[in-house]
């Protein structure tokens, strides 16, 4: 039980810290949200290329996988595993392991955009 509570705390703290880092970048550099997402994705990807990000995932669970850097981690991880089975796996492995995210983004994106209309903002 204590373990589970601890996992929640770790997820909250690590996830919050990653987001705070992003906010710091926004404040300092005026980067737009699209660029922030790309940089964090690449950061996760490169860290995993050196085998580092998985340590963070082991420690923080969703705190490390929910931020977009976790998506980068997934891509790198898939490519690394794929590379073991040959060059075809090396090339396709990344997107294969990230396919859940991409597929659901496209599917939910299309469906919700069909259903909902933009709202007036104030």
């Amino acid at each position, binding site marked *: 039980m204590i373990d589970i509570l601890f996992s929640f705390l770790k997820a909250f703290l690590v996830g919050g810290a990653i987001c705070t880092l*992003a906010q710091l970048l926004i404040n300092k550099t005026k980067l737009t949200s699209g660029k922030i997402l790309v940089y964090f994705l690449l950061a996760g990807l490169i860290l995993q290329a050196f085998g580092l990000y998985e340590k963070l995932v082991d420690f923080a669970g969703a705190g490390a996988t929910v931020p977009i850097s976790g998506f980068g981690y997934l891509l790198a991880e898939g490519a690394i595993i794929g590379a073991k089975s040959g060059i075809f796996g090396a090339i396709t492995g990344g997107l294969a392991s990230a396919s859940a995210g991409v597929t659901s983004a496209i599917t939910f994106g299309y469906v919700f955009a069909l259903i909902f209309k933009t709202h007036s903002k104030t």
Partner: protein
Amino acid sequence: MTGKNAENTNKNYLDYVSEISPKTNELKTLLHAFWVGGFICFIGQAVRFLFIYVFGLYGDVLAGATSMVMIFLGSFLTGLGVYDKIGKYAGGGSIVPITGFANSVVSPAMEFKSEGYIYGLASKMFVIAGPIIVFGVIGSVCVGLIYYVKGLFI
């Protein structure tokens, strides 16, 4: 006084502008980003536990299922017109989580729906999030190839 032949005036002016421009309240934005970002990951962790202990998932399937649920939530809140409000409050706290990725897919799709379901909705869907897929795929191919070549020699 065009941009080209008055470099000095320009510099003094730009210095003056940045001097009197309002500053972002740094601490406040960081705090907002921290607790909202943390909270979204907290929900992610709850979803993760749900899949582990109730459905017995693990590994890739677990990671995939969790991100699917988070993307669903992000898309749904965007559709309801709530996510942009969270974004104004939380900044990086709601941009960086995968729900923010979903938001950046759904929001242009909704916006451009008025130009049709193919060239509007579908083609503008990745106007903001497209680079994430592009760099993600290119990055993963690079990593894969490096590991493949490494594997040949070890």
